[in-house]
């Protein structure tokens, strides 16, 4: 099970990770990825409804590829300052290889599939990066 959530509020990465693995003693690997606002304040617009739907599809796809992996994805929207956390991906499983792979997959796919748009203060809308498309493509068959 990989759960997803969209919210304006900050998240507590440690609490999310602790909740994910609580009571489990069969997990050998816990991976936490936090995306941070770099350099410039930004506003993150999204498409309510489609965001939840697309994150759910990405999570279901990850769960199908790595059946032993559990996870939690949290994505924020709204106004964010430099250094603020934007996105959290936590994965856990028996072995580190699958936990790392699932976390990278979730990030790569949500980067290209979840309907968010970054607007930087003073600089306008952020352009999509070809490197994100490349990162996403490596998971295709």
């Amino acid at each position: 099970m990989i759960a997803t959530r969209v919210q304006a509020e900050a998240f507590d990465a440690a609490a999310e990770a602790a909740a994910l693995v609580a009571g489990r003693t069969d997990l050998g690997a816990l991976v936490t990825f936090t995306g941070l606002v770099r350099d410039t304040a930004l506003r993150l617009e999204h498409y309510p409804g489609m965001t939840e739907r697309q994150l759910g599809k990405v999570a279901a796809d990850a769960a199908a590829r790595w059946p032993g992996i559990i996870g939690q994805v949290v994505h924020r929207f709204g106004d964010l300052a430099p250094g603020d956390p934007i996105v959290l991906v936590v994965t856990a499983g028996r072995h580190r290889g699958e936990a790392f792979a699932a976390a990278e997959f979730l990030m790569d796919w949500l980067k290209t599939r979840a309907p968010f748009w970054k607007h930087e203060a003073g600089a306008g809308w952020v352009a999509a990066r070809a490197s994100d498309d490349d990162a996403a493509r490596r998971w295709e068959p």
Partner: protein
Amino acid sequence: MQLLYFAWVRERIGTGAETLAPPADVATVGDLLDWLATRSPGHAAALADRSAIRVAIDQDFVAIEAPIAGAGEIAIFPPVTGG
């Protein structure tokens, strides 16, 4: 048909949503974009570069050739930049 616009598509068109009834010969997403572009200078500016336009029907991404028949909600927006 409910149309939704996001990010700079929304800004150029000047609204985030509008309800429109396209003529019967507007059959695909591509047809819809062509027809929308004629509605105002803002619509034209928003849709000028088709390579920078993405479309979702009922919250799933669709290709430019997709039919729009039966669509409840069509969203038009730039490539996503979350994460």
